[in-house]
């Protein structure tokens, strides 16, 4: 069964460092998303991406965040200068067609900022 894969599964970084989280969405999917879950809190929308551009972003997704689809398979989330409060589980998701809400999530990348 096709699945969304994310790397790394866990990354520990120092405050102020740049981090890139990588995702390989399901191959025929066209819509891509990043969500995050701070420990003990709800899953929060960060950004949606379609046709090589951001289609929507939340207030969390400020200038220190960026997304990119550098080739035909990868979808990345970059955090330029990490803060302690960026520590969270980051989930990539994808879906095939027009938005249905039925997202396919990866297993997540846990980011720990020290």
């Amino acid at each position: 069964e096709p699945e969304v894969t994310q790397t790394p599964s866990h990354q520990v970084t120092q405050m102020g460092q740049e981090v890139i989280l990588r995702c390989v969405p399901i191959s025929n999917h066209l819509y891509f998303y990043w969500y995050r879950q701070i420990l003990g809190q709800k899953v929060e929308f960060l950004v949606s991406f379609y046709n090589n551009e951001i289609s929507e972003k939340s207030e969390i997704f400020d200038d220190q965040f960026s997304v990119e689809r550098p080739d035909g398979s990868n979808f990345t989330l970059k955090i330029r200068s990490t803060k302690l409060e960026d520590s969270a589980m980051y989930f990539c998701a994808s879906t095939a067609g027009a938005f249905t809400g039925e997202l396919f999530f990866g297993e997540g990348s846990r980011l720990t900022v020290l």
Partner: protein
Amino acid sequence: DQQVKQNSPSLSVQEGRISILNCDYTNSMFDYFLWYKKYPAEGPTFLISISSIKDKNEDGRFTVFLNKSAKHLSLHIVPSQPGDSAVYFCAASAYKNEKLTFGTGTRLTIIP
């Protein structure tokens, strides 16, 4: 800003009985509702959805009920099985809005 609320952080149900998970929302613009299930160390998995034009949607052991006037939805699982033990998230979206707003989740434990 809790637009989607799941007021029960946990629920324990005997195997074979019915599990009822509840969710309330405050945003009148929401018109599509979903339930996701999450096991530890995995991403959320889509379970079932309902559009605001319906009040019930059924898929096997899972049924979602929507009460628009009360801004309330519930997920019924019957009969409950040990493999149903997981965290269940309610989520909602507004028409033509790609963003899903999640609740905080309810941890369901099925007791054998």
